[in-house]
């Protein structure tokens, strides 16, 4: 399978960096009203067929990314906790044949905190998973029902306890800035959540995404999202409380104790290489952007037809790479090194950002510059998209 090595495109100077592998499992029991991820509800999934397909897809990427050291694997979805542990195991084992694993490889699986799924945690741990990310979403049964989640708070907390017992590292998600949620409500809920003692938390503000049920409700006036000022207050409060608890934000919505950051997600934000397999998965192989067929059936037929699930494989010009690196990197509290971004993309450093805008943003306290390193300040984070529109000098025309 590694015979394709000679044909692989040059991966400029990145060969030494750790590679990340994303595996998408597209199936859910039901679709949540806020979710716009690539998830599908299907009766009866042919596990053997999917196992074969994902293995073929992985081999395709492996042939194009030979000799790399794998730093992380992430099973995302959909609901990957619905995957039989044996399937997870075979995928991990196959990855180990393609790539060398780094000593402290992080293998994360997204899981629903239900009793059915927590019963599999022991087997998943045996299969090699060493980190789970649980979709708790809220600590209130009414809210869980509103969010379309199948689990109750009691059930979720039981699952959380099992996860903390079985896995070295555990994270969970909460959705806040929900309709009608006050600062005091959220403070109570978040404080309770921090008490569970996980080293990582993903705290997302509810976003009304196009094409979701919530969007329909908003359009009909049946759902009123939190206004910007209140959302901003909630965002500030979140940062304050998590920092006080020793789990500060290291990204817009992600919080971790020292050393507990998601290594896999950091690869995206630091714009490293990642192979993405399975329906709808995105990947970056050096300058090459990849996308898989989103619909499960189309993905399977592409595997049969082409020996991979690719729907898009497009080289990115240096400007686009630089732009992507900026969009992703400035989400991080650590900021980014413009010199590194310029060197990796192959564009002059001066072409990256609008200096006048940078000065203006620095003056009003939204940005910090220290030599080639630029960092969006905590004040700037809640308005990052507007900052990027001002700051990024690369024009859309160049990215077409």
């Amino acid at each position: 399978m590694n015979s394709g090595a000679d044909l692989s495109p040059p991966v400029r100077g990145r060969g030494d960096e750790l590679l990340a592998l994303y595996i998408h499992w597209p199936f859910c029991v039901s679709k949540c009203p806020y979710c716009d991820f690539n998830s599908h509800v299907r009766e009866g999934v042919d596990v053997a067929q999917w196992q074969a397909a994902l293995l073929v897809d992985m081999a395709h990427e492996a042939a194009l990314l030979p000799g790399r050291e794998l730093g992380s694997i992430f099973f995302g979805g959909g609901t990957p906790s619905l995957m039989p542990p044996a399937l997870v195991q075979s995928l991990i084992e196959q990855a180990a044949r393609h790539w060398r694993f780094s000593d402290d490889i992080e293998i994360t699986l997204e899981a629903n905190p239900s009793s059915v799924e927590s019963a599999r945690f022991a087997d998943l741990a045996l299969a090699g998973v060493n980190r789970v990310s649980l979709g708790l979403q809220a600590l209130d049964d009414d809210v869980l029902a509103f969010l379309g989640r199948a689990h109750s708070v009691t059930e979720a907390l039981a699952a959380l306890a099992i996860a903390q017992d079985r896995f070295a590292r555990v994270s969970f998600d909460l959705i806040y800035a929900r309709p009608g949620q006050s600062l005091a409500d959220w403070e109570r809920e978040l404080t309770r959540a921090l008490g569970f003692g996980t080293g990582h938390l993903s705290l997302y503000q509810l976003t009304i995404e196009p094409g979701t049920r919530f969007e329909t409700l908003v359009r009909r006036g049946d759902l009123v999202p939190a206004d910007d000022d209140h959302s901003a207050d909630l965002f500030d409060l979140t940062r304050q409380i998590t920092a006080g608890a020793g789990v500060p934000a290291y990204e817009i919505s992600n919080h971790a104790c020292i050393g507990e950051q998601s290594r896999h997600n950091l690869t995206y934000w630091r714009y490293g290489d990642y192979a993405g397999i399975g329906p709808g998965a995105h990947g970056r192989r050096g300058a090459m952007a990849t996308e898989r067929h989103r619909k499960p059936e189309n993905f399977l037929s592409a595997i049969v037809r082409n020996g991979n699930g690719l729907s898009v494989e497009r080289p990115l010009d240096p400007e686009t790479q630089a732009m992507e690196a900026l969009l992703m990197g400035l989400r991080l509290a650590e900021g980014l090194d413009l010199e590194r971004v310029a060197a990796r993309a192959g564009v002059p450093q001066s072409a990256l950002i609008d200096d006048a805008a940078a000065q203006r943003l620095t003056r009003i306290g939204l940005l910090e510059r220290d030599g080639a390193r630029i960092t969006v300040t905590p004040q700037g984070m809640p308005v990052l998209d507007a900052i990027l529109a001002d700051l990024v000098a690369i024009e859309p025309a160049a990215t077409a």
Partner: protein
Amino acid sequence: MTELKHIRNFSIIAHIDHGKSTLADRLIQQTGGLTEREMSAQVLDNMDIEKERGITIKAQTVRLNYTAKDGQLYELNLMDTPGHVDFAYEVSRSLAACEGALLVVDAAQGVEAQTLANVYQSIEHDHEIVPVINKIDLPAAEPEKVRKEIEDIIGIDASEAVLASAKSGIGIADILEQIVLKIPPPKGDRDAPLEAMLVDSWYDPYLGVVILVRVVNGVIKKGQNIKFMAGGTEHLVDRVGCMRPKIETLPELAAGEIGFITAQIKDISQTRVGDTITTVKNPAAAPLPGFKEVQPVVFCGLFPVDANDFDKLRDSISKLRLNDASFSFEMESSAALGFGFRCGFLGLLHLEIIQERLTREYDLDLITTAPSVVYKIQLTHGNGELELHNPADMPDPTKIDEIQEPWIEAVIYCPDEYLGSILKLCQDRRGIQKNLTYVGGRAQVTYELPLNEVVFDFYDRLKSISRGYASFDYYQIGYREGDLVKMSIMVNAEPVDALSMIVHRGTAESRGRGMCERLKDLIPRHLFKIPIQAAIGGKVIARETIAAMRKDVTAKCYGGDISRKKKLLDKQKEGKKRMREYGSVSIPQEAFIAALRMGEE
């Protein structure tokens, strides 16, 4: 050749929507000018905008052949005149070409102000008026009430008014018969030297400039060398004809007749409405009376939203001007809007029409600056007089001795329940009441008003407070001194030249406050707070603040899908292109237009 006694020249006077165009179409159809198949609704209104708005911008004529009950064949020339006060001079020339008019009044709505203005003009030209009460088949029709209105308000005998429905074809034959019976034939001498009045002209891509003429004396024919007496240019006539409404070439047009000529003219500005056409060889002793140079009254700047469209804008404006010599333009540059044109118009409707045609026919996105009138400024120390077309060019106040502004006399006609709020509107706009009369539940009020108060948003306000029932007409009555100042708008301490305007000192503060409040809603939040101020000279008279943006971030960005994030950025950047930067504030182009449409609710 038709004998004078068998010619009738007439126009149709009607308020918008009272059915003028439909009636014209019916007359053409009934006399066989067009077959049923060829009739497209409202044949005479050529332009899309004319069709949509039901208004006529260019004069049109059509020649009808009608055999009357006396057995004689008559040549009827129907002149379709522009229907709006902006084109009052053009209207007066069209009327001068006729001996009579059909007065069309809607049987449900009755007489409107615009009808009044036009019918009085027609009467001033000694026209015989044939009243037609149209739309009599509407459920709300009250023909008897309308008949009385015509008699009471206009003061003409309406006892023989034709009851008609142009839409259903009722009364058309009666109308044709009354035209022949009541409207006098034209006078004129075909053996005298040529005197033909230039009624209107337009540019045709195949024929060049087509000139609509009324021959008063003499004969015009192909091969003649003609001369424009006011314009001074000479041309060779290469085609003479009439519209039926299709073009028909004729051997000649003689005294009393209406038709068109072409004379290999490319530049429409050579053909001035009202000019007298005569022959080079045997010229008339004196031009016909009534010629006037047309002067633009309202000015505004037109700028392309996308600076790259400047050349396209210039080409489009030049093309429009080919067909409309009354519209003027010169290049202008604005600190923030870049390059564009300062354009002059006959009035607000004219402005709107040009703007709409540029947007629609030439696919241009435009920013329009505040409309302004022409001020006359006397400079101090005998430095002469200055005509100010653009508030940006206002001299320093210390150099100004006196500013004069144009005034109008406005006639407003409305159901009397709205009178109170209309009077208040006129008072607020510095109006001076001249007259107020009531006729049958309707009020007619005459005000003198400064034009600058009218170009602002007077018409919109009038429509809204009267729910569309008030009608409004005006004409200019000259210049008067005014206590006028330049009000600047500053966004984040930067003056926005496109929003500066000249206002009366007494209304400056409320105008400034309204503008600041409006802009506060129109300019999106930025990353920093933005003060908005209105100022006269260095003195701030109103201020508002736009709070800084507090939240704009994509909460979830992983799974490695960067494309959505990138699309968002592209969209934001694309959006910025449609904005104008003042200091570091991006103002959406809609804000410029909307800011000037200030409600006062």
